[in-house]
């Protein structure tokens, strides 16, 4: 029913959305979030490497989805996170949530990405024109997760 994946291959957010929509007829709301690799002129990024902790990452994602389901009455959920080498414009993460009504779906989608950012063992390393650097945590991400 739920789809929770950690994968190196690219995914198509449209296809994931359609598949999720066709997985249920009992839910009137479907909210999705797609995270992309950024490249800004003020802060250029050539590529991004995503490291993870195999095993723990899968169980952390399953746990985060289970927590969302105790908070809101949800239908099927899709959570896909890529690892390995990614380039600007590519999708990193997809969160798709179904629910009977929109309020729960919006909230649960935001909860899932907020929790994933601070609780799932992924680490980003950027390659920039001036070398490689590990991405630092943002205090705003911690604050976003603490709201829930």
């Amino acid at each position, binding site marked *: 029913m739920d789809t929770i994946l950690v994968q190196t291959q690219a995914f198509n957010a449209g296809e994931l959305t359609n598949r999720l929509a066709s997985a249920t007829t009992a839910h009137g709301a479907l909210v999705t979030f797609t995270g992309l690799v950024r490249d800004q002129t003020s802060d250029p990024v050539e590529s991004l490497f995503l490291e993870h902790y195999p095993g723990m990452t899968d*169980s952390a994602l399953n746990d985060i989805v289970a927590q969302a389901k105790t908070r809101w009455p949800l239908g099927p959920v899709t959570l896909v996170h890529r690892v390995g080498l990614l380039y600007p414009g590519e999708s990193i993460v997809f969160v798709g949530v179904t629910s009977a009504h929109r309020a729960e779906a919006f909230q649960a989608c935001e909860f899932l990405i907020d929790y994933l950012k601070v609780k799932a*063992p992924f680490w980003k390393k950027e390659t920039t024109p001036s070398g490689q650097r590990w991405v630092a945590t943002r205090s705003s991400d911690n604050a976003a997760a603490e709201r829930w």
Partner: protein
Amino acid sequence: MIRVLFFARLRETLDCQELDLDFSGTVTELKADLAKRGEVWHQAFHAEEVLVAINQVMSKNDECVKAGDEVAFFPPVTGG
């Protein structure tokens, strides 16, 4: 024996991916033992924020590690 794993920047700083150790005690005691392996290790475990998971579950410094456990140390996570 316990297996100790290191990830991301911490793995690179220590130049170590995994260790098998004879150890039992708390996470705090394990960190103190690891910090004795050299200056780089001392710095890494004292100057930076290091998170710990025992058997792939996020854990705290006062928790106990026993034979057969997998203990992972890593920096704060940055996925999404």
